[in-house]
């Protein structure tokens, strides 16, 4: 075997030397033969003749070459060299073909890189598949977070996991003399770090008592935070940090550089220390991790956890009914939400590649048509059909290789651009994939596979068409084909139809997403987002625990509003909790006084907005009736939105009516005003019932300015520090920016689909143009004849246009029908526009028709200018 390979390798790579040796060996034999004949008395001439007769040198050589066993490879190399020569002779064709393939392959590889990173690639932490994400699922959804009591029971009752731990993704505001900063935080249960297999780079892990209620509050910092905020000072360990929401915590360790378990975290605090009283039914916000015992399969683990879940379901039917334990190989849990959009994008780029393949196929067909005679001659010289197909496939594969190489480059750029567009990956569910997103070996493998597949798919039909031609008919023809190739024309028309149809589906998808995005950006949100600055403040000394402290905070809040509003260029300022387009929502149930409760005894829910008296002015809310409350009315007065008013007091005047929160009991709150419905809870959601209640202080504030809000940031910050220099101001951003950030997903999705649709449009235009230009070129003589017989140039143009537009229009109709069904897949991503929006469909149909017309027009115009005398002499 080994000798065989060695021999063949030698045969392949040292062919010239081998040929020389073969020549010498056979000559040696031949000369001895001649000598032998001479010895038996033949004259030299005759001896040579006899030896030659007996020993056909060339045939023996050919057979020896066969015996080397590399003939197939040899011929393939020959094919490739030949293909390279032909392609080199037609640089224009080669460039267009390779470029359109590169576009398709590059887009596919880039999207695959993202898809792979998020959904398929095994996590670097997988530990041979023993590392498992633990979540919960019911009949409908899987991968949901779990509650702390359930986690504890699972941990105690199972025998399949060596270790188990849980974590919660959260954030906290870190405050110190240097200022305040919102940092991502992970609450982790005991044993988290040993389970993940990580030891602190500096300091130590949690001690057991630090995971118990009442134990010391400590935290580990990420290496990155330690470097950024504390310049890597080791003296930080042992010092207290103030975490708003957690109180003072002592820094005890620093995690290794680059460590993350999915979402980035800058601080790690104990989960067990504070979670003991969390409820089983709600507070489902933990993710579990487990390391399977060696030898335990995922199936076995699932079986046992299933039993545990059933037992707990019986024990706690209220909280656990219908919920099972979901075990997922680590790294797969994340990004369930990204699955649908990523697969949709993959489908879209698949369409682009298909169009590119159809284009290439068409170009190759056109060329094959021009090579009929060459093929016929080769055939008559004994080339088999298989050999011819192989030779032509070599050409398309070489093109595919070029396209693939350029595609890998495009994919690299595409990935860079994509990451640029996405920005901070940690704002996506599950955070940045471990191992990052980029062009790795897996993606390159995908690229190679896509290129080969594209090359074969595009080249096979033309190769068979070209090699299967009738020999004598081809040779008899005096010039390039005069009609008669109906089948080929039909094939090429089919490709044009296919391209147009695919392009239309993509255009419809891209168009719908663009419309949806436009709707989200331009629809009236119910408030005036321009010229509003949002900011947050925090102070190491500010506390709001006791009544006295709360009074101080209220006093501070009032002074802040006063001082900020006194600034020139400021129109209104208001504290707001929660801040619009900020970090959370607040909700409560309400009871309208005197209303009979619902049948099931449940109270309706409303979103709560605790805001300063000037909030209406700061946000630009429209008051429909009544007035805004005053600061002194805290806890007694409220403004409700129209929806809430309709829901609670249908057909009545809500002003002066009373309601209560959290149950049908005092304190009663009086409605003093009705505001117009807004989308301040998010541009994607329709407004629900909303309640505005007075508050004097909040860590989040809104300021309406007369001019550019960003330009006022420094002045406002200074004024706040002037009131209390311990206050740190952070997260300062115009409201419009925050709103725009909230549309990031929509924007990315719309942009990508739009880009792919544009690519599809370009490729389809090139394809249609190529086919029509080729067909028109073939008809030069006919056109010349028609013109000579009196046809007007408009008749000629019409002739060419009709030939091109017929298959394109067929494709457009087909594509519109296909898109009608396909865009349903987009339904959940669309806002303010239906998946079959007639306007979008009409627009993209018109667009594609116009582009197809333009692509046909160029060859048609050329045909119009045909000089009949020249055309008839031609050929």
């Amino acid at each position, binding site marked *: 075997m*080994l*000798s*065989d390979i060695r*021999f*063949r390798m030698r045969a392949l790579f040292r062919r010239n030397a081998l040929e020389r*040796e073969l020549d*010498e*060996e*056979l000559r*040696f*034999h031949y000369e*001895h*033969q001649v000598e032998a004949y001479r010895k038996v008395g033949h004259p030299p001439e005759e001896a040579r003749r006899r030896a030659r007769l*007996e*020993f*056909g040198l060339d*045939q*023996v050589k050919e*057979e*020896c070459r*066969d*015996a*080397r*066993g590399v003939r197939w490879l040899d011929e393939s190399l020959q094919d490739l060299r030949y293909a390279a020569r032909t392609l080199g002779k037609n640089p224009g064709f080669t460039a267009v073909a390779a470029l359109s393939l590169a576009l398709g392959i590059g887009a596919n590889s880039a999207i695959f890189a993202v898809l792979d990173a998020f959904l398929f690639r095994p996590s670097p932490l997988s530990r041979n598949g023993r590392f498992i994400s633990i979540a919960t699922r019911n009949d409908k959804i899987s991968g949901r977070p779990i509650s702390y009591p359930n986690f504890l029971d699972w941990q105690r009752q199972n025998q399949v996991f060596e270790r188990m731990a849980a974590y919660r993704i959260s954030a906290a505001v870190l405050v110190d003399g240097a200022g305040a900063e919102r940092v991502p935080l992970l609450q982790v249960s005991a044993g988290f770090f040993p389970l993940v297999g990580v030891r602190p780079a500096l300091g130590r892990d949690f001690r057991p008592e630090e995971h118990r209620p009442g134990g010391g509050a400590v935290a580990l910092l990420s290496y990155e935070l330690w470097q950024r905020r504390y310049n890597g000072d080791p003296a930080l360990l042992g010092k207290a940090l103030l975490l708003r929401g957690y109180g003072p915590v002592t820094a005890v360790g620093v995690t290794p550089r680059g460590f993350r378990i999915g979402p980035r975290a800058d601080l790690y605090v104990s989960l067990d220390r504070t979670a003991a009283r969390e409820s089983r039914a709600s507070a489902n916000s933990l993710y579990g991790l487990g390391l399977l015992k060696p030898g335990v399969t995922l199936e076995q683990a699932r079986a046992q956890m299933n039993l545990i879940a059933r037992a707990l379901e019986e024990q706690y039917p209220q909280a656990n009914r219908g919920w099972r334990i979901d075990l997922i190989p680590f790294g797969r849990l994340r990004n369930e939400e990204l699955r649908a959009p990523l697969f949709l994008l993959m489908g879209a780029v698949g369409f682009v590649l298909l169009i590119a393949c159809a284009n290439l196929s068409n170009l190759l067909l056109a060329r094959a048509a021009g090579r009929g005679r060459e093929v016929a001659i080769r055939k008559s010289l004994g080339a088999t059909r298989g050999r011819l197909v192989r030779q032509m496939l070599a050409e398309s594969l070489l093109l595919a290789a070029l396209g693939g190489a350029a595609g890998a480059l495009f994919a690299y750029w595409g990935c860079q651009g994509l990451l640029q567009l996405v920005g901070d990956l940690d704002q996506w569910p599950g955070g940045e994939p471990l191992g990052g997103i980029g062009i790795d070996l897996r993606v390159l493998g995908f690229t190679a596979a896509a290129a080969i597949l594209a090359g074969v798919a595009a080249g096979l039909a033309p190769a068979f068409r070209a090699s299967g031609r009738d020999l004598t008919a081809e040779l008899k023809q005096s010039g390039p084909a005069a009609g008669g190739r109906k089948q080929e024309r039909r094939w090429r028309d089919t490709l044009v139809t296919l391209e147009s149809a695919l392009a239309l589906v993509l255009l419809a998808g891209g168009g719908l997403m663009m419309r949806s995005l436009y709707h989200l950006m331009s629809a009236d949100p119910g408030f005036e987002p321009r010229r509003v600055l949002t900011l947050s403040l925090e102070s190491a000394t500010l506390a709001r625990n006791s009544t006295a402290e709360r009074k101080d905070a209220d006093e501070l809040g009032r002074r802040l509003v006063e001082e900020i509003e006194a600034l020139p260029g400021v129109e209104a300022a208001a504290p707001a909790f929660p801040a619009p387009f900020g970090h959370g929502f607040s909700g409560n149930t309400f009871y309208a006084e005197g209303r009979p409760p619902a049948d099931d005894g449940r109270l309706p829910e409303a979103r709560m907005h605790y805001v300063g008296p000037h909030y209406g002015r700061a946000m630009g809310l429209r008051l429909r009736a009544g007035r805004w409350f005053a600061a002194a009315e805290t806890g007694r007065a409220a403004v409700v939105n129209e929806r809430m008013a309709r829901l609670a007091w249908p057909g009545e005047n809500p002003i002066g009516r009373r309601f209560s929160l959290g149950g049908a009991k005092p304190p009663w709150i009086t409605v003093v005003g009705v505001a117009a419905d807004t989308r301040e809870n998010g541009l994607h959601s329709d407004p629900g019932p909303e309640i505005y209640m007075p508050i004097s202080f909040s860590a989040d504030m809104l300021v309406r300015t007369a001019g550019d809000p960003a330009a006022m940031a420094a002045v406002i910050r200074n004024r706040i520090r002037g009131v209390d220099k311990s206050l740190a101001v952070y997260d300062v951003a115009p409201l419009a920016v925050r709103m725009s950030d909230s549309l990031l997903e929509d924007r990315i999705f719309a942009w990508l689909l739009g880009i792919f649709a544009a690519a599809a449009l370009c490729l389809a235009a090139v394809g249609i143009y190529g086919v029509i230009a080729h067909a028109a070129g073939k008809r030069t003589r006919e056109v010349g004849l028609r013109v000579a017989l009196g046809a007007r140039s408009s008749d000629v143009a019409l002739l060419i246009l009709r030939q091109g537009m017929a298959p394109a229009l067929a494709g457009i109709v087909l594509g519109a029908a296909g898109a009608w069904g396909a865009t349903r897949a987009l339904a959940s991503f669309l806002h303010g526009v239906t998946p079959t929006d007639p306007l979008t469909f009409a627009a993209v149909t018109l667009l594609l028709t116009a582009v197809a017309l333009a692509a046909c027009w160029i060859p048609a115009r050329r045909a119009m200018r045909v000089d009949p005398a020249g055309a008839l002499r031609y050929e």
Partner: protein
Amino acid sequence: MSDRLDLPQGTLDLLILKTLAPGPQHGWAISQRLQQVSKDAVEVQQGSLYPALHRLERRGLVKTEWGASDNNRRAKYYQLTRAGRKQLEVERDNWQRLAAVMAAVLETS
């Protein structure tokens, strides 16, 4: 040529291996030797000798070396490898058994 035997498939390889058993030979010598030992009953088509030699080399049964021939010309010498010797044994046994069986079958009336 009618009195000469056509070689059954595969036997040429065996004959070549056998010819090489005493020591290295070049192609011309192999062809002469074959003719000689078969008393001219076997005519090796020279067109098939060289491809057969190359095939044997590919299979690792013979190895080649350039050396000087009797009249001091460069010639390519073929030589059995260890695998080649083993193969010769095996094929000789096979052949003898087959010949015996064939003879026995043909003898019985």
